[in-house]
């Protein structure tokens, strides 16, 4: 799916959602969600290709692969939490949106904890 198709789908979805916003605001939120999902699914193969390329580069270098895993997970968590939080704030529920973002941040810290521990251990080992 190239960029023109994605742009067109987005604009059509925006117009439809705008038409429905006054009459049936629940439906307009749902259209926003669905258009977002469709666009993401359209970009999916390209994301997969990029990730594969990243893996190849990393395996050629000497960085431990689990670090790349952690980075990828952080990207995924941040994407999902941003998607949900933006849908909520578009629908006017700013409080729920900020709670979702906060939860995402906490989970990112939890996931990156082992990396931090590894870093601190390495520093402690360096010191006499």
């Amino acid at each position, binding site marked *: 799916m190239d960029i023109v198709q994605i742009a067109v*789908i987005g604009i*059509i*979805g925006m117009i*439809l959602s705008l*038409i*429905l916003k006054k*009459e*049936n605001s*629940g*439906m*307009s939120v*749902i*259209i926003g*969600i*669905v*258009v977002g*999902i*469709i666009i*993401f*699914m*359209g970009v*999916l193969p390209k*994301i*997969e290709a990029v*990730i594969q390329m990243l893996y190849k580069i990393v395996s050629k270098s000497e960085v431990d692969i689990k670090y790349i*895993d952690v980075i*990828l*997970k952080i*990207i*995924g*968590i941040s*994407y*999902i939490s941003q998607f949900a939080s933006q849908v909520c704030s578009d629908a006017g529920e700013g409080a729920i949106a900020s709670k979702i973002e906060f939860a995402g941040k906490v989970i990112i810290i939890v996931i990156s904890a082992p990396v931090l521990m590894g870093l601190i251990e390495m520093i402690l080992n360096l010191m006499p």
Partner: protein
Amino acid sequence: MDITVVFQIAAVGILVAVLNQVLIRAGREELAMMTTLAGLVVVLFWIIQYISTLFETVQTLFQLS
């Protein structure tokens, strides 16, 4: 995963809104509220599958377990 789903949702939304107005003008407000809810339930039924596909895909893509 193509755009006809969006058109279906928009069509259902517009129809439900029009039916809502007609029923309210005719005085049958409970029926109007019920059709709105019914339309919402039908559309949610379509959406839940989409959202679950999205989250599964993101999970496998970024290896989030």
